[in-house]
């Protein structure tokens, strides 16, 4: 569940989109009461209803102890990622804790390493819960977190963490992804149902991504130990079948993920096995999380799985105006999608597409409808290309959820 050392990084000076966000440093007051996000995912979607864009999301309610790190939109149609802290004093929950999370966020939204989280940024809310500890980790901390240098695993009291979540968040808030960041610089990280990482380690940003690959996306480690294996395992990014990849990534063979992990193929060595298991790319986030080299991104196979996991939780449309059904002639129909940059909308009249990728609004007065009754449909769908998604027909590894990435809304209008 931890990682291998990688090659010397080649740097990129690409500015993270996070640079536009509020810094949320120790000098700033936490924003729990207002729900204002530290990372403003709505900054480039300021368009109002009048322009047909998505409305500004209301404040994200992370509870009285919570800080909205990312306010992507309504929690009922977003992946909700909740991060607790352990070993932080009353002062540190306002400073160090938030700095540790912000550090991880920079890499999370890096335009190469952080993909697909950057593309799907408006799909994931992130709440940080400020848990005050009386002592440090491995001492008298609130969630009992610790670790050891032998296994390099972090551990926490899961019951305490779950209770803290229950106490902190609104009753209607549904948690999809939960994590604890430890106030320590040891190399202790765990990619389990409750994902854990050490916030003060210099590679904590990579650890948070890598362990999320395990805990939320159930990806395999792609590095080796000294075992020989032969069995086909369940993770999508490791196979015992280098030629056909057991159907896991045969459609990706030969694809060049650039920038990123380069050629997608079958590379010997994966899942701690030097023999008998193959991985999809030479390097990747699930192989080596260290440094800022582009080849520490998630490879194409992992990215696709991550996208499927997001669609498992959300649907493209947040709201429609007016509601589906009969509408008066002359109405303006509006579909509020999660992110117009990611989700296109095709408009059709009586099953004939009249406006492909036509935006969020459709004005019936301008549609030139003849007398009679017409059916207007808006089909909203993820515009991901072949560089992101190739398994579109369902199947294992979460691929059934691709069908959730498109949604059709229907109205009926009668023109006199």
């Amino acid at each position: 569940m931890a990682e291998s050392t990688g090659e010397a990084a080649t740097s990129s000076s690409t500015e993270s989109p996070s640079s536009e966000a509020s810094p949320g440093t120790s000098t700033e007051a936490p924003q729990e009461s207002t729900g204002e996000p530290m990372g403003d995912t709505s900054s480039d979607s300021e368009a109002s209803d009048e322009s047909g864009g998505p409305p500004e999301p209301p404040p994200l309610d992370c509870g009285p102890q919570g800080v909205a790190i990312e306010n992507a939109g309504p929690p009922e149609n977003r992946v909700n990622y909740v991060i607790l802290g352990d070993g932080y004093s009353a002062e540190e929950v306002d400073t160090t804790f938030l700095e540790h999370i912000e550090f991880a966020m920079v890499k999370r939204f890096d335009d190469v390493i952080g993909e697909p989280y950057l593309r799907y940024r408006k799909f994931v809310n992130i709440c940080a819960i400020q848990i005050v500890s009386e002592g440090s980790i491995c001492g008298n901390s609130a969630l009992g977190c610790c670790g050891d240098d032998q296994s390099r695993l972090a551990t926490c009291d899961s019951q305490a963490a779950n209770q803290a979540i229950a106490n902190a968040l609104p009753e209607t808030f549904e948690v999809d992804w939960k994590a604890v960041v430890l106030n320590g610089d040891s190399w202790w990280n765990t990619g389990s149902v409750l994902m854990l990482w050490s916030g003060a380690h210099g590679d904590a940003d990579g650890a948070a991504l890598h362990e999320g690959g395990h805990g939320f996306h159930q990806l395999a480690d792609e590095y080796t130990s000294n075992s020989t294996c032969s069995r086909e395992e369940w993770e999508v990014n490791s196979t015992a079948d280098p030629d056909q990849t057991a159907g896991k990534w045969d459609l990706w063979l030969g694809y060049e993920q650039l920038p990123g992990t380069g050629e997608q193929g079958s590379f010997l060595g994966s899942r701690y096995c030097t023999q008998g298991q193959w991985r999809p790319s030479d390097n990747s986030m699930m192989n080596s999380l260290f440094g800022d080299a582009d080849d520490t991104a998630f490879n194409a196979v992992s990215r696709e799985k991550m996208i499927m996991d997001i669609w498992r939780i959300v649907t493209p449309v947040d709201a429609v105006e007016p509601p589906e059904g009969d509408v008066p002639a002359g109405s303006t129909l509006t579909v509020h999608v999660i992110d117009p940059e990611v989700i296109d909308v095709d408009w059709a009249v009586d099953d004939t597409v009249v406006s492909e990728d036509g935006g969020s609004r459709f004005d019936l007065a301008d549609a030139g409808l003849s007398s009679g009754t017409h059916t207007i449909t808006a089909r909203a769908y993820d515009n991901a290309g072949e560089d992101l998604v190739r398994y579109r027909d369902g199947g294992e590894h979460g691929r059934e959820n691709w069908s959730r990435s498109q949604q059709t809304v229907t109205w009926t209008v009668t023109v006199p």
Partner: protein
Amino acid sequence: MSARLPGLRRALLGLTVALAACAAIITSMGTGEPRGPRSVASRERPPRAKQDATIEARVHPPTPTVQTRNETRASTGPTLPRETPRAPSHPTTPEHARIQHELGLIRQLSDAYDRQDSAAMRVLLAEYRHVHQDDPHAMQAGYEILADCIEDPEAARAEAQQYYTVERASTLRRLIRRSCLELD
């Protein structure tokens, strides 16, 4: 001032400065301390190349492996050997295996749920309960309810509501609401 120094003194001073500089460099490299988080105010990725790799290698001592690109199968790229060795940064302990096994069950349970295959879910749940007798995140109970809801949502509604009310931190709560509590 320096022009007045005798040659020997100048040489000694120069040597002292050089030694101090070397000591400072060795000290800074030799601590093996992890790098602190980058400033949150500075979002640009700073160059991190050889120097960082040196520090990382010290934190996680690499051992050579035999992986090279020319071991690629079913691919067409160049066959350049990978120069930087990789190594696991943790041993594969029984606890690692336990976590990996549980994640595998969750993955398979999720796929079975997506297929609405409650029979497959029950087989997986039997293994889950047998191997992982503690269930701190109420995953087993949650998937059991989801299987019940696939088979008879009305009958499972009460237990689903109970789970939704009590297990506030469960990552299955959303699916249970959808599958069991929002019946058409």
